[in-house]
């Protein structure tokens, strides 16, 4: 008898909790992410939906290709991502550097998915130029393949 009462109590609590949380969700107490516009190009290398869903896969494969096989300057180059999506923010480095961290953090903090890319990769680039990794040939290739359409 006591066990049944306890079970009933827990179930009730669960139902009430669910109700409260769904009511909260309707009022959108957590703001949806609003991504800042990239400073170069009109579109990303992939359509937005595809990018949102798959960017982690692209990055995972690209990093292996770059480090292990020495392939650089392809479509999913991380440097290229940073170069387009890093925006200047007066709060960060007095606006002297562009940084991609807020761009990634916008969605990642909403989804509560921790990334450790920036433990090693510098999220900041100088205001004007791309980083000095790429030879002109490679930058041109990115341009041709439509990466910065």
């Amino acid at each position, binding site marked *: 008898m006591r066990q049944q009462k306890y079970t009933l109590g827990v179930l009730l609590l669960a139902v009430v909790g669910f109700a409260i949380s769904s009511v909260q969700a309707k009022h959108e107490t957590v703001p949806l992410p609003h991504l800042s516009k990239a400073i170069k190009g009109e579109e990303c290398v992939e359509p937005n939906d595809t990018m949102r869903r798959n960017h982690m896969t692209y990055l995972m494969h690209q990093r*292996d290709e770059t*480090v292990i096989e*020495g392939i650089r300057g392809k479509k999913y180059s991380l440097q290229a991502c940073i170069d387009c999506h890093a925006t200047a923010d007066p709060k960060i480095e007095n606006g002297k550097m562009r940084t991609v961290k807020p761009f990634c953090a916008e969605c990642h903090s909403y989804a509560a998915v921790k990334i450790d890319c920036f433990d*090693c990769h*510098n999220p900041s680039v100088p205001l004007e130029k791309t980083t000095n*990794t*790429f030879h002109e040939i490679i930058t041109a290739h990115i341009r041709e393949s439509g990466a910065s359409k």
Partner: protein
Amino acid sequence: MTIDTKKRELLVKGAAVASMTIASGVMLIAPAIARKAGEAASDKVRWGLLIDSNKCDAGCDECVVACKTENGWKSHDRPSTDPQWIRKVNLRDKKTGATHSLPVMCQHCENPPCVDVCPTGASMQRADGVVLVNRHTCIGCRYCMLACPYKARSFVHEDVTGQKPHMPRGKGTVESCTLCVHRIDIGRTPACVEACSSKAGRSAITFGDLNNPSSNIAKELSRYVTTRLRSDLGLEPGVHYRGV
């Protein structure tokens, strides 16, 4: 008239010699051909260094400074845990007291013991012979550091900020000389090589393709006998030394 002709001949010869020197100097500086975007490193190439340590002296460490600047590693005033990708080693003959100085870095062996022992395969050898740490998969176990006969590797003991964009590095992973892959992939030479020739004016370090018999480094290697460190271990390092 004869004197003028002689002068002209001298001028022409001199120009020829000068251009040959400059041409070979250019070849010395840029032996690497830039790879195209999307092109993988090839095993037809094997990058190596030739260090003529007779040109080194204990007071010069331009190569070390250049590596630090290029790759963004620096001292935290904690010598035992600070990173060190390349260092000058000063030798002293125990019996005679004669001294010598030379730079030591990752020897980019053909049979690297560090690659053998890495449990995740993070310590790897690229197809073109460069031995690297894939920091994405490095778990920081430091076994490779134990295995390296040259103490070439160091562990990042603290948080890192302000990394060079072309050289990501972070706490908890192991690192060592990368032979400046970010430079050689686009046709430049490693930072130490360039600094030694331009800043130090010694040109003690030559970089090039060991597999290409017409590369400068291959020609130098066939001209004079060179040694490799701990060659008795059979690791076939890619770094050759003269003067040791």
